[in-house]
Every structure is written in C-alpha cells, then in structure tokens.
C-alpha cells in the first residue's frame, strides 16, 4: 500500500471539495471492503484518502407511507437486508443483499459503496497483468482472449468485457431506483440504470459521476410487483462468490394475468442489465408455463459471448425461467 494522507471530514461539502479540487489524487473510503483490497493490491494509488464516515453520509433506512424506500448511502448491507420494510416490500432486494459476500463484509460495506465497487475481472485485479484498459488505459484487454468465464456477454467492447459485480444493483435497476448525488455542481438525481457507463473505448471511466460527486442516498419507488419477487443467483460456489448469472424478477399479477413484470440480470454486463424484451413478453399475458417459457427465451437476446463464457446465454434463459416460475407460483 502506497503512502497517503487520510482526511476525516465531518460534512458533505468538505468531502466533495477534496475530490473536486484535483489533480486525480483523491479516493473515497466508506465501508472499505473494496477500497482496502484495491489499495492493498496496488490498483488504486491515491495521494489522499477521504473517509465518508464521521457523519458525512447518513445511514438511515426509511419507508414512506406509500411503500417507497429511501436508503442513506452509508446504510450497511446487513441492516438494509434485515429491515422489515425491505424484507416485506422488496424481497428481491433483501435476497440480493444476503446472497452477496459474507456476513462480515455485509456488516461493513455500505449500499452506496456497493454500487461503486470495481469489477472483479481477474485481469483488472492483478497489477502484474499488463493488458487492462480499465486499470491502465491503452494497454489492451487480456480478458478477451483469456479466462473469461465470469465476464460480460452484453454491453462489452473490444476494449473491455468486465462485468459489474453488484447483486444489490440488479433489483434496483429492475425497479427503476434512483441515486441522489451531491457534487461540486450541486445536487442531482439519476436512475441507477444510468449510473454506470458502457466501456466503449474508455473503460477506465465507469460511471457518470464527476470528480468529487458522491452518492448520498438511494431511492426505490413504491412497487406492487416487488412484493412478489425473487433474486436468483447462480455461481460456482454455493456461498461467498460472485454471480456467473443472476436474475431479479418481480411480477404483479391479477387473477392469473400479469399486469406488470420487472426483470433484470447481473453477471452478464458492465452494468445491471434490464431485460425489457422479457418484460414485454410477460406484460398483459396469462401467468402460465408457456408464457413464462416464451418470455425467458428472450433473456439472451443480443448476447455476444466469448469462448470461455459461451454457456452464459443458455444459463441466462434458464435462470430467468426458474426465477419466473418461483415468483409466478409455477414450480
């Protein structure tokens, strides 16, 4: 770990000013479960590390009378997963959080930091590897022709096929959640779906955040579909492992007919991937086995796998189908 100075501001304005002032010297640390790995492995080399503890960000978990959720960015993953309003109103969010990492990590990691965690691509995480456009722009992408079992089949480019590793972000995208941001230009609100950029020819720029801009809260709109929902994660180990493929599914049904469907997938792209083709195939249709099967068949539309992850399109269809069957009560 390289030397840095540690700053512990007590308000958002001061924390923002450190990141906005610069010089590309500032990194932020909240729960620390990703940043400490990046520092230890010499992937991030900030001159200044700014702590977002000490009251900079709030950790409140609040449910509005209509059921909408507001999560302070510093709320811990474990606290959000255990909150009654989340468990009852948004089971897919609770399940996504509980399928993430380990209990110790969930006690430390914040929900804001979860959205901003860096990819788990092994080539990004190993500074001994030369070719990683995300870590060292212009050096190429060793993953494209390397070990790419875990990597993207949607949204990648010739410069990067990293996946976004968050489980929590997947239901957020399915439910049209937004993030509140505070930065040098003031405050703004953007959909979680628009927080992360596709790699294109600049994979090192991962989000639309400007220097110094912080996530202060996550807001999830009230959703009837979310009450009947499921997060299904498929992985190489049963626990404490990132997704090969995951699906967040929520269905609002009325007398056997699907009023509204929300479907997004994780482990397949540089950001959580909303499955609008699947949703369209379900909306207004009967909740029966043939409909679910036909809808799930759309889950892999547009995929472009590499040799090491050629199994993913079929796994995506099967994962969505199983999640739909669980939520639709048709095992």
């Amino acid at each position, binding site marked *: 770990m390289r*030397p*840095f100075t*540690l700053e512990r501001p007590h308000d958002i304005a001061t924390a923002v000013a450190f990141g906005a002032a610069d010089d590309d010297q500032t990194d932020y640390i909240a729960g620390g479960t990703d940043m400490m*790995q990046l520092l*230890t492995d010499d992937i991030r080399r900030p001159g200044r590390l700014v702590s977002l*503890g000490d009251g900079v960000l709030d950790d409140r978990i609040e449910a509005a009378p209509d059921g909408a959720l507001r999560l302070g960015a510093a709320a811990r993953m*474990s606290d959000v997963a255990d909150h009654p309003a989340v468990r009852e109103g948004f089971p897919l969010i609770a399940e996504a959080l509980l399928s993430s990492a380990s209990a110790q990590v969930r*006690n430390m990691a914040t929900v804001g930091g979860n959205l901003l965690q860096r990819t788990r691509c092994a080539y990004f995480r190993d500074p001994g590897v030369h070719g990683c456009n995300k870590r060292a722009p212009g050096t190429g992408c060793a993953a494209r022709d390397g070990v790419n079992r875990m990597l993207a089949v949607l949204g990648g480019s010739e410069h990067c096929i990293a996946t976004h590793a968050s489980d929590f972000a997947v239901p957020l995208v399915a439910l049209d959640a937004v993030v509140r941001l505070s930065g040098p230009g003031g405050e703004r609100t953007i959909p979680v779906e628009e927080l992360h950029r596709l790699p294109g020819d600049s994979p090192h720029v991962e989000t639309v955040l400007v220097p110094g801009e912080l996530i202060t809260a996550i807001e999830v709109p009230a959703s009837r579909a979310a009450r009947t929902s499921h997060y299904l994660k498929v992985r190489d180990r*049963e626990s404490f492992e990132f997704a090969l493929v995951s699906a967040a599914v929520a269905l609002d049904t009325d007398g056997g007919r699907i009023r509204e469907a929300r479907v997004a997938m994780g482990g397949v792209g540089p950001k959580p991937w909303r499955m609008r083709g699947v949703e369209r195939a379900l909306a207004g249709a009967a909740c029966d086995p043939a409909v679910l099967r036909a809808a799930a068949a759309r889950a892999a539309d547009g995929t472009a796998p590499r040799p090491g992850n050629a199994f993913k399109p079929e796994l995506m269809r099967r994962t969505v189908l199983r999640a739909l069957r669980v939520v639709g009560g048709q095992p």
Partner: protein
Amino acid sequence: MPAQTLTATLHVNGREHALPDLDPRTTLLDALRESLGLTGTKKGCGLGHCGACTVLADGRRILSCMALAALYEGREITTIEGLAPEGGAARPHPLQQAFVERDAFQCGYCTPGQIMSAAGLIDEGRTGSPEEIREFMSGNLCRCGAYANIVAAVADVARTPLVPGAREPEQGRS
C-alpha cells in the same frame, strides 16, 4: 515512509489504547497485533476472503484486515482475548468451550476468527438450522476442513436442533 502520522485512540476489550504516530495505512488488524500485542486475532489472506481476522466492532462481526485503524476510533472492539467475561482458560466463553468439546479445529489458525464470527452470528439470530449456520459462517475458511464440527459447536451454543432424520451437518452441502 508514511505521508502523515496520526494520533488515534482505540477502545479494545474495555480498555483505551492511545496510538501515537499512527501511519494512516495501518489496518485495525495490524494495530491489534503489532501495537497492542493482541496476537489472538490472526492474519490470513489480508484481503477479506478468509475471516481469520474477524473481531467485533460495537458487537458486530467485521474483518479487521479491511478496516483502517484510524477509522475505528470510538468503536468498541472485542477480540478473542476479550470474549470471555473474566478472560483466560479458567472461565472460557461458551463458544470456546464448545469448540473444545466438539473438536472444532485441527491446526487452530482460523479458530479465533471462527469463534468471533460465531459470536456475531448468534447475536444476529441466523442459527435456525445447520444449513443456516453454514451459510452465515461462509466468511470463515478452515483449510483443515473442520467445518462439520465447527457447525456442531455453534449449534450447541445457539441451541440449534440437529434434528434426527434431518440433514446432519456431516452430510451438509459443501
């Protein structure tokens, strides 16, 4: 050379410890072991994967290798040395006793982390079945493979039924 030195005060096992001249890069784990001499907390992977460094912060299990010491000022840290109320071998904590009785270790290196993690787990109440204990202990690796007896030891203290006919921990999912 550190770019800066800090002064921090840690609260560990009911005592205050001033850390003058703290390099901001110092992890809570290294501060416990190197500065405070509390070597019961083990350093395994140093990357949050293995759980050997598990301690409690304000009663909740965390990974001390993923924590900067300076950011844990004002938190009450409990390590394996502070788990038993009176300390020492004379009056071990029920989890320590259960690990001995169930032979829940071989080399012992992961054991302090396993026990601290189990203490946090029991407080979380996620001990309804052997399967649940396994899932919620998945942040603690044991390379000797003592998992079956670790689950049994945790179940003893949590009073988790190892129901006859139900899946026994020895036959659990791997």
